[in-house]
């Protein structure tokens, strides 16, 4: 039941609209589906811009004696929801010609879940959207049709269901502990005084890609289709970042967790030779920056985490659209089979270079004006070691998304350029050059260009982004010392990258991660346990069977046709036995 239908007439939650449209999108004809994919996110973007904030703009629902707050937008939530809608729009355009309709439908539901979380106001509604996200994103992975999509999707689902169980248990604990405000289980900052706090934190951290479950991002995302990975990179981890900002700001445990994630992403991306997996590890690396900032917990650090999440969504979309275009054109994502593509894909190369510059924080790109808030605050809050390690991680981004990814994909000149996909299949070369070996065309080109343009726009006009958080004029990233410092961090890293090219050539093989524990160690332990159990059970069954056989033999021996109790006895023997029994009786009676 809607509390005040008249007042809330214009406040239909965008998340629910997207979930509803995702459910019908699958069944619609192609033209109508394309129209919805192109237009609906833009309409919702307008709705979001016009939507107010605070208590006067809430939409509540009573359900099972609980007040569910479907809509209670905050400035941070609105900013996240805005960039999620842009990600859905751009990802949808990129996917329009190549993706299966099931993937588009799942993407709409997935985005609906994320946006629902950003705009909701209580933990129960959040959990509902959380699980919608987990299921929809699994369908996107399953739609990937890559070699290991099915099994990777199942592993992804198991990890996220486990995280969901932790979250639900924590929320149940929150409800039982009596911390229920007047408006229900309000989604707000939690105090670290009970078990449910840690359970909720653990559930959220699973989605953020925190240790020991950081592996699921690089395990599952590259198994999605080229467009599917664009959707996946935008929503799950950033939604977790938003929840951490809202509920766990200032939790010091997040600082070492974030630093671990930042270094984990660097080391694994450095050793990886699949370009889409390099970008997946880079996601963990950058989310590590955000988690560390949330752990620091000051206003500047939280603004840094929020704006860096926005910047990261934008530039990672550009990079993944670039990698996806290469995969569609050549059929390869292994760096050993790529290189020299800048001639045949100049537009993609240009956009990817903008995205790569943004990922490194080159001045006048998005990351320069967002990551600097985190580093500046770490320095000013006297977290010298945190500042030092994050500065080092900023330099090391050159070795994953910054220079290594574009170099391996578009520039490495010591290997021949890959053949276009259809040329390999023996089709007309001229047609291939027009259709598959070149840049993406049409909607796909608009999508990658729009995302790259936004990376530059945020870099050139950072106050536009800061203003969304009410912080316009508070930060001034463009000072000469800051620009020089940033270049001093990046240039030695670039120099070392080219000096160590031979060291980090693409290699075949996979890298062991903590998933080894689940996929190999625990699996082998289970095999051993089931083997032992099976053997013990067989021994037990054999024992039972043998006991029955022995009992039967005993009975048969005595009562069988030749048994002692079944024999026909001579009359003399019977008379003798009767006499003996009678004599015994007489003796016993006389003794008594």
């Amino acid at each position, binding site marked *: 039941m809607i509390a005040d239908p008249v007042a809330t007439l214009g406040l239909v939650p965008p998340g629910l609209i997207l979930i509803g449209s995702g459910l019908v999108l699958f069944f619609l004809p192609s033209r109508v589906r394309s129209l919805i994919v192109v237009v609906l996110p833009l309409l919702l973007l307008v709705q979001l811009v016009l939507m107010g904030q605070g208590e006067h703009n809430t939409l509540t629902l009573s359900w099972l004696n609980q007040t569910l707050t479907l809509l209670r937008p905050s400035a941070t939530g609105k900013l996240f929801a805005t960039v999620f809608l842009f990600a859905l729009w751009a990802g949808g355009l990129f996917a329009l010609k190549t993706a299966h309709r099931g993937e588009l439908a799942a993407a709409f539901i997935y985005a609906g879940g994320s946006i629902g979380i950003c705009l909701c106001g209580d933990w129960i509604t959040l959990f509902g959207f959380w699980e919608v996200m987990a299921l929809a994103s699994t369908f996107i992975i399953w739609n990937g049709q890559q070699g290991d999509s099915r099994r990777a999707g199942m592993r992804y689902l198991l990890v996220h269901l486990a995280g969901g169980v932790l979250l639900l248990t924590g929320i149940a604990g929150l409800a039982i502990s009596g911390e229920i405000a007047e408006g229900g289980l309000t989604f707000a900052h939690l105090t670290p005084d009970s078990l449910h706090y840690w359970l909720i934190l653990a559930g959220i951290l699973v989605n953020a890609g925190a240790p020991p479950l950081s592996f699921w991002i690089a395990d599952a995302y590259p198994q999605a289709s080229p467009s599917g990975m664009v959707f996946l990179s935008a929503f799950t981890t950033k939604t977790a970042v938003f929840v951490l900002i809202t509920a766990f700001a200032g939790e010091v445990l997040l600082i070492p967790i974030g630093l671990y994630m930042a*270094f984990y992403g*660097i*080391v694994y991306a*450095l*050793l990886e030779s699949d370009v889409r997996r390099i970008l997946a590890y880079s996601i963990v690396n950058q989310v590590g920056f955000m988690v560390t900032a949330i752990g620091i917990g000051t206003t500047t650090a939280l603004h840094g985490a929020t704006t860096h999440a926005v910047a990261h969504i934008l530039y990672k979309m550009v990079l993944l659209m670039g990698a996806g275009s290469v995969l569609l054109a050549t059929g390869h994502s292994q760096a050993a089979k790529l290189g020299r593509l800048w001639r045949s894909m100049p537009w993609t190369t240009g956009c990817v270079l903008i995205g790569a510059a943004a990922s490194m924080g080159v001045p006048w790109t998005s990351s320069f004006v967002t990551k600097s808030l985190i580093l500046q605050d*770490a*320095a000013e809050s*006297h977290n*010298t070691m945190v*500042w*030092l390690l994050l*500065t*080092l991680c900023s*330099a*090391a981004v050159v*070795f994953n998304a910054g220079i290594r990814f574009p170099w391996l994909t578009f520039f*490495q*000149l*010591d*290997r*021949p350029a890959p053949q276009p996909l259809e040329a390999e299949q023996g089709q007309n070369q001229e047609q291939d050059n027009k259709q598959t070996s070149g840049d993406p065309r049409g909607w796909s080109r608009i999508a990658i260009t729009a995302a790259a343009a936004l990376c530059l726009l945020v870099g050139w006009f950072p106050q536009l982004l800061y203003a969304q958080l009410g912080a316009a004029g508070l930060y001034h990233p463009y000072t*000469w*010392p800051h620009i*020089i*410092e940033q*270049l*001093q*961090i*990046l*240039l*030695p*890293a*670039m*120099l*070392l990258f*080219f*000096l*160590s*090219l031979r*060291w*980090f050539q693409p*290699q*075949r*093989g*996979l*890298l*062991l*991660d903590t998933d080894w524990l689940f*996929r*190999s160690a625990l699996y082998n332990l289970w095999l051993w346990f089931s083997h032992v159990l099976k053997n013990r059970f067989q021994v037990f069954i054999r024992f039972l069977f043998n006991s029955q056989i022995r009992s039967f033999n005993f009975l048969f021996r005595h009562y069988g046709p030749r048994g002692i109790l079944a024999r026909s006895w001579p009359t003399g023997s019977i008379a003798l036995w009767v006499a003996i029994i009678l004599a015994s009786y007489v003796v016993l009676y006389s003794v008594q």
Partner: protein
Amino acid sequence: MNVSHPNKAHNSYVKRLIYLLAGGCLLLLGMDLFHPPHSPLQHSSPHAPVTGIYLLISGVGLLIILPLSRLLGWLLRRREEFYDR
């Protein structure tokens, strides 16, 4: 120089980039003389160098990370069919 061979073109291209970047690093080091950098290390240790501190952090830090990463790669790399056994 015959640049039609991929490896020669590659090496020439990479060498030029290295010279360019090395020159850029020197230029940035020189700029520190005009704009002395400010880093939190100067608060925690008065003996921390000022000129070129960011170049030092980036360079030395990466020189530690890169060999360690390579060592980890050597330890952790397995065949692609490792989990298919």
